[in-house]
């Protein structure tokens, strides 16, 4: 039944794309996030649906779309350079087979992120893409949120739609993304035109936000808790009554803690006491290994280079009995531990050049969104109200991701690359529609080009 429903949905979306080829772009985003071919076991699973829809999206744009307004921005060039560089490191990777597996999805995600901005040239298309991203993620988040609320969950045991640790179906990644999309949900709730703001939209947005906040509880991923902290700080940035909001947040936290499962509070307490936690100690050991590794391999070891690591670390177990605390210390040896950080993932896999390109790509995004927000927040026109909040939401989502990815290796997460694609598009779109206004403003000062008229 689910299989038939999903197949009908995908085919229906593709059919509607015959009338509006842009819908194929949305269909690709949906497939990239939800991966219906993994939920389904019959028809969708047996055809390369992702490839078919990508070809349709690209072909539709190439054949029918107006390309006069499409721009190729600097950050798209950066992504293209990163793509070429990753291809180069894959050729000489330490672990060629595993590197080829990761390359197979990374190049697609990068190519689509480079392509996406070329298609985003109207306001409605921005909204449609953001809405598709949020609703697609909601397919996973709503279920995860309800299960958590009903008492399910646990680290690595919250059953999402697909029992598969790839894409958004991995707990830490989903926690980070679920929190990162909250600013986008708020933007859609306030500025949506496909679903204009009314009580139903608000109810859905509030419920979805709540489900997003429950995901870190359900997956018990500590990254998620840190992301929630970042979200709160970012929300305070433009709040008019900061003290009031801080008080409310504190109150909400106090009310929420007793309802949290004990296993959750225990796991979260290891954020402070990281020495007694194996996963945190491994991270630090792996990061040290990575730093040593790139001293000998400054150009990186290709995808999955972490497989070559051998780490030794000391794990302290503290046991308190009455007033006596006994600290038990043991040395643990481990090998092939993942990077557990996007920054070290980039460094270990792509070396200093790759890390530099990636950091530049991210930093420029934060800066560009900040500039857009400042430039457009002063505008008062009726159709000039959505731009600054969207830039702000995209910036906040990226900032949450950047902090969350300190502890999770999600440097090439396709969802985040989509977000970067939308940022690139917004930057070039707003510069384009701004240009006529600039020209008008500068009009009297700028020298008017002289028209050569034949003498009478």
């Amino acid at each position, binding site marked *: 039944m689910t299989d038939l429903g999903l197949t009908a949905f995908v085919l229906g979306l593709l059919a*509607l794309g015959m009338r509006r080829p842009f819908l194929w772009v949305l269909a690709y985003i949906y497939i990239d996030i939800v991966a219906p071919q993994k939920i389904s076991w019959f028809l969708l699973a047996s055809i390369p649906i992702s490839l078919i829809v990508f070809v349709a999206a690209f072909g539709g744009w190439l054949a029918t779309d107006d390309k006069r307004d499409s721009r190729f921005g600097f950050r798209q060039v950066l992504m293209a350079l990163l793509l070429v560089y990753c291809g180069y490191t894959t050729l000489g990777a330490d672990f060629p087979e595993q590197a080829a597996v990761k390359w197979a999805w990374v190049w697609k995600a990068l190519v689509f992120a480079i392509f996406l901005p070329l298609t985003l040239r*109207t306001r409605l298309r921005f909204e449609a893409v953001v809405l598709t991203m949020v609703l697609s993620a909601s397919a996973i988040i709503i279920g995860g949120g309800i299960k958590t609320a009903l008492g399910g969950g646990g680290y690595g045991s919250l059953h999402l739609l697909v029992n598969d640790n790839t894409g958004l179906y991995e707990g830490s990644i989903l926690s980070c993304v679920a929190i990162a999309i909250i600013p986008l949900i708020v933007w859609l709730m306030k500025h949506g035109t496909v679903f204009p703001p009314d009580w139903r939209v608000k109810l859905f947005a509030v419920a979805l936000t709540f489900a997003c906040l429950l995901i870190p509880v359900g997956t018990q991923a500590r990254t998620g808790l840190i992301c929630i902290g970042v979200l709160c700080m970012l929300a305070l940035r433009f709040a008019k009554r900061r003290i009031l909001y801080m008080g409310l947040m504190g109150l909400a936290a106090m009310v929420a803690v007793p309802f949290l499962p004990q296993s959750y509070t225990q796991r979260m307490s290891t954020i402070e006491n990281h020495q007694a936690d194996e996963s945190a100690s491994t991270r630090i050991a792996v990061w040290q290994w990575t730093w040593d590794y790139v001293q000998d391999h400054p150009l990186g070891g290709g995808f999955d280079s972490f497989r070559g690591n051998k780490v030794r670390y000391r794990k302290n177990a503290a046991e308190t009995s009455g007033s006596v605390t006994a600290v038990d210390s043991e040395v643990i040896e481990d090998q092939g531990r993942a990077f557990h950080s996007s920054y070290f993932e980039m460094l270990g896999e792509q070396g200093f050049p790759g890390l530099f390109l990636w950091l530049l790509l991210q930093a420029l995004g934060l800066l560009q969104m900040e500039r857009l927000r400042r430039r457009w927040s002063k505008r008062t026109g009726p159709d000039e109200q959505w731009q600054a909040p969207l830039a702000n939401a995209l910036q906040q989502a990226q900032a949450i991701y950047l902090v969350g990815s300190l502890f999770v290796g999600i440097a090439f997460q396709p969802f985040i690359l989509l977000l970067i694609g939308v940022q690139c598009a917004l930057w070039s779109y707003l510069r384009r529609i701004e240009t006529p206004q600039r020209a008008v403003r500068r009009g009297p000062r700028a020298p008017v080009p002289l028209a050569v008229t034949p003498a009478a």
Partner: protein
Amino acid sequence: MIDLLALGLSHGLLALMAWRLLQRSDLDRDPPPGEGDAEAATVRKPGGRRRD
């Protein structure tokens, strides 16, 4: 059951979004500047509710 609910709700809304986008002329071309609020330029399907 919960998965079905989540899939049904999200996919229903995605389908409704796609259907509504089909009716919108501003999907492929922005309305000319000064032609009013893009957020209000929503083309409703026949019988649909208007936003105030």
